[in-house]
């Protein structure tokens, strides 16, 4: 199956804006991330979050044909109050 990838912020700078990627049917977000890390081992050190079709998902989320998968760093705030 094919999914559409989008990267943001520091991930976009390293990997580009994204593109189409082919995965085995029924692959999870985690499968996808491991494939990306296998190609770019330095990614393993990054903390990332995932969204599918503009909604946050866990890495175990199963992907479907033509899903839009966004991979990005934790959002910018999160710091002191």
């Amino acid at each position, binding site marked *: 199956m094919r999914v559409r990838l*989008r990267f*943001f*912020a*520091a991930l*976009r*700078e390293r990997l580009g804006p994204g593109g189409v990627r082919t995965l085995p049917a029924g692959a999870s977000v985690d499968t996808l991330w491991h494939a990306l890390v296998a190609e770019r081992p330095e990614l393993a*050190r*990054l*903390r990332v979050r995932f*969204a599918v079709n*503009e*909604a*946050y998902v866990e890495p175990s989320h199963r992907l479907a044909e033509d899903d839009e998968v*966004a991979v*990005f*760093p*934790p*959002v*910018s*705030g*999160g*710091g*002191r*109050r």
Partner: protein
Amino acid sequence: MIRLTRTPIAVDALLRAVRDPAAGGIVVFLGTTRNVNEGRHVVRLEYEAFARMAVKEMRALAIAARRRWALRRVALVHRTGVVPVGVASVGIAVSAAHRAEAFAACRWLIDRLKTIVPIWKREHFRGGRVWIGMQQGARPARRAR
């Protein structure tokens, strides 16, 4: 009014967006770009958003706040692109019949917004630039509370 903008946040527009004859108070929060962060002298900030998802998440936050407190109206605006030091990068306005609800909701909205709305900040400082939240080996980002 829930939106992203590349131009300065107009406080009067925020106020207009939440004005309501049934409101007894309006609370406004402006998050402004600070000139020093973790010892670095910041010269400007740059915000990147996953725009469609960011607006969706902001709408969901406004709905959640209205479920949680008795509010009249809610406005959320976040800037994207380059923002100079000392100006607002995020603006929140909440009107409610009573001030306690407006203060509580506004506080909750900014805390939630900063942990879940997909907008990232890159700090430009003297001698470099860095994506906030991505520093490898730095302390982990704090979790939403």
